[in-house]
């Protein structure tokens, strides 16, 4: 135990020395980027370094909350962040983001109109979308022979004990709300009550409520149907070709990971240059092909190979997208959400 502590201590010390060293550094301007793990084609930012002579320090995080904690702690001095929609709203509300100067980001014109003026940044002042995706149904074509089009299939007794639900309050309740034709961000107690009833009805059919491990379970063919995010679905489909992903026709949750600049950034100009670089169609194309997520960049989309472009799981039709909603902050009615989730989870 003591040895372990010693080793840990040394590691921390080492990490601190390195980070200090990086603060000093050469005369080159540096840019600190904080992105999701495995969420960029590395050649893209390497080329940026070469093109502009700016050194990029690239760090990664695994959850929005994780990123938030580090950024808020005050020790971090990142220049570009990649948070998701609701987290951007929170950062804006807490006045932690800088307004972008879009004259420095001419490539913003390539961002598809339908991904501008989103609810979390209504006047498009703070954020530029990087990737987007949906919540949907991942299913095994060998086990499900009918076409999957609606959330209703998750309530079909035929698939009893063959369904994985997402063990996340917002997502599970959101699925039920959408199925009933209500808003994903409902604040109406009667609607939420109905969603609760339908999730309690569904409970006997559910094999398990799972988290991130759903990917591996679906790849191992443990169940026929699962509620997953499109990113996880793409990973699972790479691993097992019997799997398919569909965005239900009732609509779903639409999510965005966007690029923002924190207020305390000392390299705002360089940060905007970097954002502009990532919006360049060639670079956006490289990234979307590498990551596999959907790009909001219309010029990059046009250059995609046809089989990706026509893949409805990554790029659902506009009429479905119109029914999709981005998560809104529902802190004011969180008590109701918490209570109904408790009731669902304790129901027999």
């Amino acid at each position, binding site marked *: 135990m003591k040895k372990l502590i010693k080793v840990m201590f040394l590691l921390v010390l080492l990490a601190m020395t390195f980070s200090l060293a990086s603060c000093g550094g050469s005369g080159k301007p540096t840019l600190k980027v904080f992105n999701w793990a495995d969420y960029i084609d590395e050649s893209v930012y390497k080329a940026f370094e070469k093109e502009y002579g700016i050194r990029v320090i690239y760090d990664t995080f695994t959850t929005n909350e994780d990123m938030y904690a580090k950024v808020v702690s005050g020790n971090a001095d990142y220049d570009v962040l990649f948070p998701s929609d609701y987290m951007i709203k929170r950062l804006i509300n807490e006045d932690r983001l800088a307004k972008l100067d879009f004259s420095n980001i001419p490539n913003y014109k390539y961002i598809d109109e339908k991904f501008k003026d989103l609810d979390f940044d209504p006047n498009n002042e703070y954020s530029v979308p990087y990737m987007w995706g949906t919540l949907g149904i991942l299913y095994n074509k060998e086990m499900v022979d009918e076409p999957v089009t609606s959330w209703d299939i998750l309530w079909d007794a035929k698939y009893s004990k063959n369904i994985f639900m997402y063990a996340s309050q917002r997502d599970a309740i959101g699925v039920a709300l959408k199925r009933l034709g209500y808003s994903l961000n409902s604040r109406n107690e009667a609607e939420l009550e109905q969603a609760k009833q339908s999730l309690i009805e569904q409970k006997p059919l559910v094999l398990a409520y799972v988290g991130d491990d759903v990917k591996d379970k679906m790849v191992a063919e443990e169940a026929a149907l699962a509620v997953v995010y499109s990113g996880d679905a793409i990973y699972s489909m790479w691993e097992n070709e019997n799997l398919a992903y569909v965005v239900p026709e009732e609509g779903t949750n639409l999510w965005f990971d966007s690029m923002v600049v924190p207020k305390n950034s000392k390299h705002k100009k360089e940060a905007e240059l970097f954002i502009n670089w990532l919006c360049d169609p060639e670079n956006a194309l490289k990234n979307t092909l590498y990551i596999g997520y959907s790009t909001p960049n219309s010029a990059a989309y046009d250059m995609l190979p046809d089989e990706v472009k026509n893949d409805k799981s990554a790029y659902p039709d506009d009429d479905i997208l119109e029914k999709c909603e981005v998560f809104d902050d529902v802190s004011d009615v969180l008590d109701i959400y918490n209570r109904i989730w*408790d009731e669902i989870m*304790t*129901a027999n």
Partner: protein
Amino acid sequence: MKQYRWLAYPYAVWMMIFIVVPLLLVLFFSVTAKTPDGSMVLTLENFKKFWEPMYISVLIRSVLLAVYSTVICLVLGYPLALILAGKDFKRKNVLVMLAVIPMWMNFLLRTYSWMTLLEKNGTINAFFGTLERLAATYLNMELTLPRVNILYTESAVILGMVYNFLPFMILPIYSVVSKLDRSLIEAAQDLGGNNLVVFKRVIFPLSLPGVLSGITMVFMPAVTTFVISRLLGGAQFMLIGNLIERQFLFSGDWGFGSALSIILLLLILLSMGFMSRYEQENGGGGLW
């Protein structure tokens, strides 16, 4: 011994900082609430909130599952402890080791491996499938073996508890029984008692302190667990441990979470008090 009393000071300090203070904090959170303007007020709301059928049913389910696992552990562990303590048993140390070794491995890892074993396409079912295929090709016979299908059920949760906590039942019983005065057993035999009578009148009553500490040591972690029910129960069987975890990590309702912890603490204290009274009446020893 008196001059070594200062050796206990480090532990006393440790206990103050890491046990007493946190407990007081939990108590504090459980009886206070934040008003909108940020000040704290005394309240019993958090405890009142617990008196709702859904939360009571969570508590009842937790206690029931813990009782089942404790009983199974006792039924499985008691004979094993007796055999281990038997004098004429040569490979005793190996068996004791076998009972202890699982505890050297990470608890989470062991629980995850049960998932891999029990899954629909998991190790056990794959093994059965292979046997069937081997029988078909080499013996030319149609073999149909049953398939395990208990993952994400209450049985899987109980299995996980029994597997993880069985050593806590075996070891206290073993340590008490192995220290039994052999001459008492010999005396009973000399007086004409057959094996059953010797067990019923001498060995079992004398082993009770071990049994009682075994029960406490299995029941306590079983009633508070939240990992086993989430992994092996597929989060469908909310136990009191899950409910507490949720209040702290998700809902952010520290008051209710603390109140639940206090209720659980009282429950455990109560059952321990009950046991220790019983133990005193019977002249106990055991682990406590």
